């Protein structure tokens, strides 16, 4: 049977099956099991109404349980068993084996870099784009163009950027934009300005912002007037502060690196095989995609800032920058956190970009691709599952935070 026909049939069976299930199970409940007639009519209606929600929920609960809840525990179990030894329980052997692999630590290091750079850059660009397009006539048109990469697959984006990073031998026309631009630099004043000073200034801004955030969280926590909150909140803020600290140290290293690094001017570079730079160039792909997402959400948040607060500030003599940083920013801080965490989740799961562009070679490995390689190339299900559990552990703070927020909202 042709797959297209099979597809149509599946839609038909799936959809009519679902609707049929809902319809007939409701009929069965109302007409046969607890009929709303006879002497027990009242009691039966109540009983039927107690059962009905579960009828509505049943297919979804089965699907969620089977496809998301069960795998979490199954993977946890696989990560502690050895497939070659007849699925025998081996405790933490797989983890020990994984921690001994340099590729795993390379993936961890790269993932930390990804986790710092991609959400920060996407949110920053998104905020910039949202704020700038907010006040111009063709803003909506500009926004939809910046938003467009959201529709492009990671694989498609990888092809797009591979063309940009393409390298041709010396003395031939470069067909990759990056090398064509690179060959314009000759080590003069312009090169110093664009390649060292401006990036260094950007990194410095980023480090300063992070240090400021970290310092504020720490100060609030340690202030004598601070009420002792829950243990969870303390752990969360300690984690945030240490994350800021790590980011600041990496940022400072990058800052000094920019001034001491010896750029190979005039030689076309094979960008994707140069360690560290290649990871950053892969991140650019994701930043290019995610900026649109950040922009759309932050733009809506900026629109939601009450006009009166801005007018009052302007009447009091605030300039454009003061209005943005002192009035708007504090009011959209919550949304920035949401955008940041959402992009963080995407980063943790990023697989396609690395798989399509370098497949983890030249020190670009990340956890998701490492896991895929362990599972389907090395065929080591134990270590692969252990890597999946590591990804789950990295995601779980966000999971707890989200659930906690929703519970708070529903109360």
């Amino acid at each position, binding site marked *: 049977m042709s*797959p297209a026909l099979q597809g149509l049939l599946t839609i038909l069976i799936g959809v009519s099956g679902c609707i049929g299930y809902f319809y007939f199970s409701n009929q069965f409940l109302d007409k046969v099991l607890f009929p709303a007639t006879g002497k027990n009519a009242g009691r039966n209606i109540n009983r039927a109404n107690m059962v009905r929600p579960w009828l509505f929920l049943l297919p979804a609960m089965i699907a*969620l349980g089977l*496809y998301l809840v069960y795998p979490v525990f199954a993977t946890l179990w696989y990560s502690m068993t050895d497939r070659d030894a007849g699925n025998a329980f081996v405790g933490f052997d797989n983890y020990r084996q994984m921690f001994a692999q340099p590729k795993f630590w390379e993936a961890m290091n790269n993932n930390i870099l990804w986790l710092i750079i991609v959400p920060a850059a996407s949110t920053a660009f998104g905020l910039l784009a949202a704020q700038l397009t907010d006040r*111009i006539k063709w803003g909506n048109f500009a926004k939809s163009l910046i938003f467009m990469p959201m529709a492009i697959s990671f694989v498609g984006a990888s*092809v797009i950027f591979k063309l940009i990073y393409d390298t041709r031998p010396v003395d031939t026309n470069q067909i990759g934009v990056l090398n064509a631009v690179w060959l314009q630099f000759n080590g003069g004043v312009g090169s110093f300005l664009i390649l060292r000073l401006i990036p260094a200034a950007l990194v410095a801004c980023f480090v300063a912002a992070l240090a400021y955030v970290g310092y504020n969280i720490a100060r609030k926590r340690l202030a004598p007037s601070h009420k002792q909150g829950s243990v969870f909140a303390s752990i969360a803020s300690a984690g945030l502060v240490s994350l800021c600290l790590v980011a600041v140290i990496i940022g400072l290293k990058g800052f000094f690196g920019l001034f001491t690094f010896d750029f190979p001017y005039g030689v076309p570079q094979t960008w994707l095989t140069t360690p560290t730079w290649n990871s950053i160039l892969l991140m650019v792909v994701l930043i290019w995609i995610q900026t649109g997402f950040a922009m759309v959400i932050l733009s809506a948040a900026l629109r939601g800032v009450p006009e009166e607060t801005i007018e009052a500030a302007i*009447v009091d003599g605030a300039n454009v920058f003061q209005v943005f940083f002192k009035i708007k920013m504090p009011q959209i801080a919550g949304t920035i956190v949401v955008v940041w965490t959402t992009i963080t989740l995407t980063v943790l799961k990023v697989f396609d970009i690395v798989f399509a562009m370098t497949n983890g070679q030249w020190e670009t490995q990340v956890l998701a691709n490492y*896991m895929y390689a362990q599972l389907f190339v090395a065929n080591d299900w134990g270590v692969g599952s252990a890597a999946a559990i590591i990804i789950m552990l990295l995601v779980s703070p966000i999971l707890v935070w989200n659930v906690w927020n929703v519970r708070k909202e529903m109360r």
Partner: protein
Amino acid sequence: MDNIAGKKSGLSWAVNISVALLVMLWVFPTAGLFVSSFRTADQISSNGWWQSLFNTEQNVVLRAADPDDNGVQVLENGTYVIRGNLYGEAGKAEIGAWGVNSREIDTHVAGDSAELGDGQVITVQANGDYVLTSPTEMTGRGQRVFATAETPPEFTLDNYRSMLFDPNNIEGMAKAFFNTLTVTIPATIIPIVIAAFAAYALAWMDFPGRAILVAVVVGLLVVPLQLALIPLLRFHLNIGIGKGYLGVWLAHTGFGLPLAIYLLRNYMVGLPRDIIENAKVDGATDFQIFTKIVLPLSFPALASFAIFQFLWTWNDLLVAKVFLIDSTGQTTVMTNQIVELLGTRGGNWEILATAAFVSIAVPLAVFFAMQKYLVRGLLAGSVK
């Protein structure tokens, strides 16, 4: 809103320019791929795509007409003459310098004449017109001319023809395109049906444990699907589905459900309570309320999720690789085909660009047509 009290922002022009730059930076990469997919392999490897939009100077080898062909040579006043255009017709390019020897390709300028030996003389004009004269009858192949020519932009649809409509091209995208479509459509529709009922129960029915279920759904939103690969693949193999369309539809349904339930529930909660309570008072059952009132009113949320799920399943690589594509390769999807082409045809940009653009085109069309719903869904879907 910055114009209150008659103040006009002096930064307005700076803002316009920065936005223009930002937009150009964001569109530039896609434009590169798009333009490249309309160029031939030679054109792509000879210069960057951004140069293809303008006249370019190219070194080309052209050939005059074969003297042996019938009627090419004419006898005028005792000399044999061949006239014609090196490009076939005038106006295709503008020749600057030219030569008749591969080692001396720029010894003459347009309008000059060159001696070829044996008394033969060729004159080449800027538009490619040439006159070749000889005292004796000419034989052999046509005279070669090496020219440096100003060529206007030229684009072709051949790449698309060979990647989409050529049945002999085993690297063609037509099959993968239909496979992707086959994966996408059921994987978009089925979760909507299941999620809509569940969302209604979570939004409008009262039962113990409802809050916990909502929290569970929110928690499952962030569970990485990487965790599910091995256990589910094993499960599929055990129950006999194996690798195939049914497996990938089920997997996409499972992975899409949390977002679907979350989006739809949030939307349904916001529907006016009066309508639903009035219907209940009038004796409507929950099933009737759901199908006749809630479902039609929830159309925007349904559309939002449908777009998400469509984009996600269309663009997906990992789920298809694990649950669908077997060793025969008959069920390959476009993303997988592109990754394979990246491996085998890494330098053939005309193939890669076209293949990538074929797979990007449909989501882009959906994106621009239904952007409103996508934005709405994004705003509702990011956990507040």
